[in-house]
């Protein structure tokens, strides 16, 4: 038992090491290509802000992938929660506001969006844990439901003209450090403590590693599975709030495709699609590696068509080595 644990620790560290090396390598490459220009504080700040909202999605789906699940509904759930948050933060004198003439205290949009995300998480979790639907299919369905609800709720219109207090949630900063970066650090820390130091957190790894063994050892697999989707949903709710606050709007295109970005990022960050393996630092490094690639190409003025190509290659390479590494284990 002891040696097994050591071994898996070793693997975890090795996989993390790979992602760190990749990240630092890219950083060096970019600084050489731009003669140091891309690594000034302003640029780094831009990069961190750009990736902040995705970090929340990545933390959520990262936990889900550790339990050997997947979540395709992220993009549209974030779109829905962003719209919900925005709808409670519109200027009351804006005639096209969803609740025109009414203004709400600042906690209302946040609570409403997080609640909407949490409900979707519970729905996904229930279907997967108790309904025994494959995660891919369950979340494919809820993706479409979220999209539909968003269109119905907003009547397909842009939810704009948000009040300044709400916009300050994301657009403000503490000294030179943008609020968004602080939120990401707090969220990553909480998820890290949760995964490493709580009973339920460690259960997620056990379920992802071998759900039968987890069940035999007394873990309530169904309940824990449902909860992982619930927690992820809460994170998507926060992501939606922050995104709406940052953009000053939400519409039916907000966050579209975020599921692929988040899944790609955590995969590059060493969270294994085979389940049971992954760390918070890996997820974050994955997010910022993908961010660095986006940012670097944008900085250098690379044609967007090539950007897609590069991202595709990187995801494939990352998953290829991930599969090779864990194929032996099974």
């Amino acid at each position, binding site marked *: 038992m002891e040696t097994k644990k050591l071994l898996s620790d070793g693997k975890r560290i090795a996989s993390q*090491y*790979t992602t760190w*090396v*990749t990240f630092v*390598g*890219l950083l060096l*490459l*970019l600084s050489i*290509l*731009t003669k140091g*220009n891309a690594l*000034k504080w*302003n*640029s780094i700040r*831009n990069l961190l*802000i*750009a990736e902040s*909202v995705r970090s929340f999605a990545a933390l959520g789906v990262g936990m889900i992938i550790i339990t050997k699940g997947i979540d395709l509904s992220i993009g549209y759930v974030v779109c829905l929660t962003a719209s919900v948050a925005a709808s409670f933060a519109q200027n009351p004198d804006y005639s096209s506001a969803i609740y025109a003439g009414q203004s709400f205290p600042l906690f209302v949009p946040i609570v409403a969006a997080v609640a909407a995300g949490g409900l979707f998480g519970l729905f996904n979790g229930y279907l997967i844990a108790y309904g025994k639907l494959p995660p891919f299919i369950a979340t494919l369905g809820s993706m479409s439901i979220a999209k539909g609800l968003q*269109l119905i709720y*907003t009547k*397909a*219109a*842009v939810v*704009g*003209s948000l009040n300044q207090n709400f916009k300050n949630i994301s657009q403000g900063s503490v000294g030179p450090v943008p609020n968004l970066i602080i939120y990401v650090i707090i969220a990553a820390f909480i998820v890290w403590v949760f995964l490493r130091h709580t009973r339920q957190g460690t259960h997620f790894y056990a379920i992802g590693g071998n759900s039968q063994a987890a069940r035999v050892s007394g873990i309530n697999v169904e309940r824990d599975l449902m909860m992982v989707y619930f927690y992820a949903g809460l994170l998507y709710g926060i992501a939606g709030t922050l*995104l709406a606050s*940052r*953009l*000053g*709007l939400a*519409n*039916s*295109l*907000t*966050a*579209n*495709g975020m599921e692929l970005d988040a899944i790609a990022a955590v995969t590059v960050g060493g969270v294994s699609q085979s389940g049971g393996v992954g760390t918070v630092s890996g997820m974050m490094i994955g997010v910022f590696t993908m961010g660095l*690639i*986006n*940012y*670097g*190409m*944008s*900085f*250098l*003025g*690379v*044609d*967007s*068509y*090539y950007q897609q*190509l*590069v991202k595709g*290659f*990187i995801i494939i*390479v*990352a998953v290829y*080595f991930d599969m*090779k*590494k864990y194929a032996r284990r099974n």
Partner: protein
Amino acid sequence: MKKMVAILLVLALVCTGIFAQGSSESKSGSVKIGALIRNLNEQFVKDYADNLRKLAAEKGVELNLQDAQGDVARQLDQLNTLITQGYKYFVIIPQDTSATEQMAQQIKAAGGGASFSNIQPSVEALKVGKDFYLASSPELVAGQYQAQIIDEYFTKYPAKAPNKVLNILYLQGQLGHPAQISREAGLIDTLKSLGYTVNFIARDTADWSPDKAQEKMDTWLAAHRGKFNLVVAQNDGMALGAVESLITNGLVDNDPSDGTILTFPVIGIDATADALNSMDQNKLYATVLQDSVGQSSTAFELAYAMATKGTAYGMTAWGIAPAKEVISEAPANDAAVIAQCYLVPFKPVTKANYKDLM
């Protein structure tokens, strides 16, 4: 260890190749203009970007063109990146109207200016400073021209719309897109003011896409055959999808005397090369020209004037003078910013004039 090296090598190879390709384009010491373009996957936007590149090459301008790929957040990030790199003057096809004020404020803070095209900036965005311009065609007008074309057709063939009742199959662009909202409003209002009863037998989005439009039409033709007398699409791509569907479903009278061999007229917007070709074959009935060259040239000339002279206020760009009278569509509906609005005309394209564009 071997694997790590392999990953790094692949990444390094792919990235250096492509990064190098990107960086080789930049020159120093010349006029710098940033272009923030919402989505290069759309034909109109691509034509717009191509013309920008051409104009920049002619004037020796260092143009950094960024594709937001349909994502507001990405567009804001790209703006940050370009500002960090010292770009101050911008040509922008915004991804969303509501984000334009924030963009204008950031550009103003950097001491620059911008001209907005295709997707309207908000009035507030233009109020950020006098060097923020609209260089675009009001979307309402495209819908109004569609309505006029429809009116001409049914005035000539009143039997095809008894009692001026129009039963329309309507293909919308992406829901929530400003063009989707305004083109529809322009069409409906003008038809009503011309005395028509407007019934939408079916109205749904096909996301600007020809194949989605064809699928949607196939379904509608099965459900509503015989109940409609007109097909209208919010762009040419979808209109051509509808044309294909009508042909495969046999709704063809092979009589081109009314301008189309189809049983019902199909009308689009954009005047793409494919659309003109289809008109030449008497399939698509008519379209409306959205002038990518006009819009991009106007926007570019404004940005170029700002970059070289410090301001473009009051100048004539691409032969278009700043607007003087307000119209009903934002942001040109506000007298305070009307002098910052350059309205590039749409043009109805019918049998009478389509050959000029081919």
